[in-house]
């Protein structure tokens, strides 16, 4: 039966003080300065060694990697789709065609995005043969194909500086994720559908939402520095009769026209976009 008598408070404080610093033995927190020094030294050496080992192992590992293509690409076998502009939060657009402020950000984002596609920036890019995979495996310096902004038609931002937002026909650019070595077959295209048929009319630029094969394959950041991924612009013309305030659009990528389904890159669904109208 441990009958522990409570120590008086003053005594326990004194004991604590003694523990923190003991003037007699010069102990700090129960150890002398030398002992602490040795411990610190030990951990310094120990952790120093571990850090060195870590760094070395990482270095060796990095040596086994190529600069051009990742070792494995099995986690991204099919490409994803992404749109621009991308609203900050979820993929929800909210704008009022009579209020320029409500879509200014979308417009500026689009403008900025398309800057890289400006003709002046594409001076090194070549015109490739449409409809054919542009295989450059044997070429040391990989060329990039030119993507002509005019293909985006009304969504190129040249005629309509607001990309249709001011007219209530907003443009959204859909792009396919870059994946090294991906070679679609057939005639890949992008198709968007609305949940409520008839509520919205969808126009594609280039027409049919087609993506030309000449833009594939991609050879990676280092080898293929000037690569520009092909874009498809989707213009929505919202039916003025529609009572819906919200229109959900879903876009899919398909390598083949419906009915012919043999490729492994069959479909890739993307971003369900949601347009909220005032």
């Amino acid at each position, binding site marked *: *039966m441990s009958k522990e008598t409570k120590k008086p408070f003053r005594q326990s404080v004194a004991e604590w003080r003694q523990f923190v610093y003991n003037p007699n033995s010069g102990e700090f927190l129960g150890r002398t300065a030398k002992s602490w020094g040795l411990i610190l030294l030990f951990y310094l050496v120990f952790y120093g060694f571990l850090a060195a080992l*870590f760094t070395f192992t990482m270095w060796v590992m990095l040596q086994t990697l190529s600069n051009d293509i990742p*070792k494995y690409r099995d986690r991204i076998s099919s490409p*994803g789709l992404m749109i621009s502009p991308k609203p900050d939060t979820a993929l929800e657009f909210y704008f009022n065609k009579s209020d320029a402020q409500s879509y200014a950000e979308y417009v500026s984002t689009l403008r900025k995005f398309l800057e890289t596609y400006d003709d002046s920036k594409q001076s090194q890019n070549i015109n490739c043969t449409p409809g054919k995979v542009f295989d450059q495996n044997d070429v040391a310096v990989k060329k990039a194909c030119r993507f002509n902004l005019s293909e985006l038609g009304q969504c190129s931002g040249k005629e309509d500086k607001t990309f249709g937002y001011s007219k209530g026909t907003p443009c959204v650019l859909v*792009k396919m*994720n870059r994946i*090294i070595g991906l070679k679609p077959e057939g005639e890949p295209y992008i198709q968007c559908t609305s949940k409520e048929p008839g509520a919205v009319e969808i126009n594609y630029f280039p027409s049919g939402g087609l993506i030309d094969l000449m833009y594939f394959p991609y050879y990676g*950041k280092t080898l*293929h520095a000037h690569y520009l991924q092909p874009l498809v612009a989707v213009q929505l013309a919202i039916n003025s009769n529609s009572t819906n305030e919200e229109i959900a659009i879903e876009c899919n990528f398909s390598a083949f026209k419906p009915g012919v389904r043999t490729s492994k890159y069959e479909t890739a669904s993307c971003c369900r976009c949601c347009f909220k109208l005032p």
Partner: protein
Amino acid sequence: FLSFGIQDDHRLSTSQLEEKYGTSIDKGLSSTRAAEILARDGPNALTPPKATPEIVKFLKQMVGGFSILLWIGAVFSWISFGIQLAQGAESAFDNLYLGVVLAVVVILTGIFAYYQEAKSTNIMASFSKMIPQQALVIRDAEKKEMPADQLVVGDIVEIKGGDRIPADIRLIAAQGCKVDNSSLTGESEPQSRSCDFTHENPLETRNIAFYSTTCVEGTATGIVINTGDRTIIGRIASLASGVGNEKTPIAIEIEHFVYLVAGVAISIGVLFFIISVSMRYKILDSIIFLIGIIVANVPEGLLATVTVSLSLTAKRMAKKNCLVKNLEAVETLGSTSIICSDKTGTLTQNRMTVAHLWFDNQIYSADTSEDQTTQPFDQSSPSWTALSKIVTLCNRAEFRPGQENLPIMKRVVVGDASETALLKFAEVVLGDVMNIRARNKKVAEIPFNSTNKFQLSIHETDDPNDKRFLLVMKGAPERILERCSTIMINGKEEPLDSEKAEAFQTAYMELGGLGERVLGFCHLYLPENDFPDTYTFDTDSMNFPTSNLCFVGLLSMIDPPRSTVPDAVSKCRSAGIKVIMVTGDHPITAKAIAKSVGIISATSETVEDIAKRLNIPVEQVNRQEATAAVVNGMELKDMSLQELDEILCNHSEIVFARTSPQQKLIIVEGCQRQGAVVAVTGDGVNDSPALKKADIGIAMGIAGSDAAKNAADMVLLDDNFASIVTGVEEGRLIFDNLKKTIAYTLTKNIAELCPFLIYIIASIPMPIGTITILFIDLGTDIIPSVALAYEKAESDIMNRRPRNKKKDRLVNEQLAIYSYLQIGIMQSVGAFVTYFTVYAEQGFLPSTLLGVRVDWENNAINDFEDSYGQQWTKYQRTYLQWTGYTAFFVSITIQQVLYLTGSWWDKNMYY
């Protein structure tokens, strides 16, 4: 002695008693009156200790120690889940599952532990099924057999040899009645009982017999004066329930461990809370991190591992005859530093055995082991032939028939302890005793009584040519010698001169000094002329000589130590465990046994021994010189606690003799005051308070009373002290192995925690998920942890001192630092290498990963760019993250396996 105020019934005369209890000695109580009293007093049985309800036992397994830690973890997880759910986070359900898993682990482990304990309780219960006792009672002027629990105060009962006394009884008539009070006082010597008031103290007086003691021989009639819990034994038993149960050392250790883990968890948690707040994380996120860190520190698998390890050991101990009632007690024996052992039955065989013989002026030693089949001493002397004849013939004990196939030592004998010893001794040496007795027909007999102090019988001899009768006699040596005029030396009768009497005295003193019960034997061939064939012997008028006999020899008997005990005691010694004998027996006997088993070693002396050797008064002896001490209960009574402490401190070899149950308690407390972990062995009801008080009470499975078994934490199924040593070894082993298990478990804890910390600080994708961690803790790591419980003992395990309660902790600073800061960090580094490798090979070089957390986890970003310009959707990233989990998981698992293998090579790394 005991301070129990017992009524002064022993002083009253028979008629006063009749008046007091409204009874009649001839007629007894009337049935109706008895029924009334029974209704008032309740049945004559000890109230069993209040059994804890099963549900409470079950719930107890669910809380306390580790379980608390896991419960807290579970609750925190749920809180975290609640917050995240409210925030709309995606992975919120991980926390819900984590909490559920933690709760399930606690519940399952609780069920398992409960089941284990219930199993050993069942084994115990099977022991305690006893045949209901019957008592012979006079009621309505008729003798009736009735169950003893129906007895009431005032009943007249008759008892005879072999009966258990059914209640506290004031004797009103007795013939040669002897009782064995060992269950009450621990004294093995039977005590005679009569109807005379001999002592003021009711416990010392001869005219009271106590409940639960046994009547060894004779008959008696008495009035029941106390029944049930009001009997002396009932009051002792109730002492036990007043003694609180101590926390087991392992429970204390686990508590300490929980504090340590909690301390580490909270410190790291708070530290990183501050860091994350200063890194501009949202407060709510920081709280989630805080909770996450605390929960990550909870060793989920440890509770299950510890429970399984303990029950494996308990199982192993049960195989070696140590039945553990309480799982935690498994370890207690290992940390025991003092064993207070009972003498009778534990250290000794609990039966009288012939130990020495004296004839032809020489002392011979007999074999006292449990399974003797021959006796090695010199049997060629004709004196021995004569002595053996007396031993065989002058003996009323008989074997129960039908046991011819049993070893002699195991056969059941009808007769008192001494006669039994002599009978078995004769059977071993001479062979069929019954046949010899049949050939030497008994013609007359005077049984032993306390006034004569001898036993005599007259026989025809088996020699057809010798028509003489043989008179044989045995008894107290000095009384026998008085009746002798000659002594047999080498088969020849020689006159008993003073020199020979001196030799007798010396031998008698020596044997008595060994604590042995000495009997003298003599005989006389009656002259044929005076006692022809047809002579009728009359034992009342004693028409035959009872003096001028021929003294043949002495036999001394003792309850010998079990043959395994000396070895066990010396093992305890080398294991640094002090063995103290606490007995109700006489100091001389106690000391003799203590010496023969090594509790008092051959070279050490008591104060009295030194005084004797130096021939100086006891007071002048320097007490520091004496390593051994024999303390009498009477001395103990007058001692202050300081004096007792001094004795316990200064002497390494101690025997307490003639101690009462309460004194046992005082001794145990004294030992505990020294900071020792005390184990107490005992069998009687009188031991139960001490058993309960002890850190580990060890009851005897065969001889032990129910009260003792109930109060004990452990039951020795074979009543053998040597089993305790096995228990100690197992206990130490499990402590060592638990240490290894915990070191093993804690190690990966850091490897599981580090990813989270780095995730917070460096904002890399989460390296390992909650579910994966659970897979390690409750999956891959459980089996190796349990395997550690099977680790063999280090060779020096029984040569170490018992661990110091205050210093040798289960989890000390060193082990924690070793696990956390050294191995844990190493494992983390290893696991991070695999993690970064997986990401790099998939396209994310380490430099790309730093600081990406927010974008990485953003559901709206589906074009997350890697180091090679490829773009990843959220789903693809999550998939990659899972791959990373797997890599981290595999890495930790492999490193744990390596660590385990390494710990085989480096056995001493835990000390």
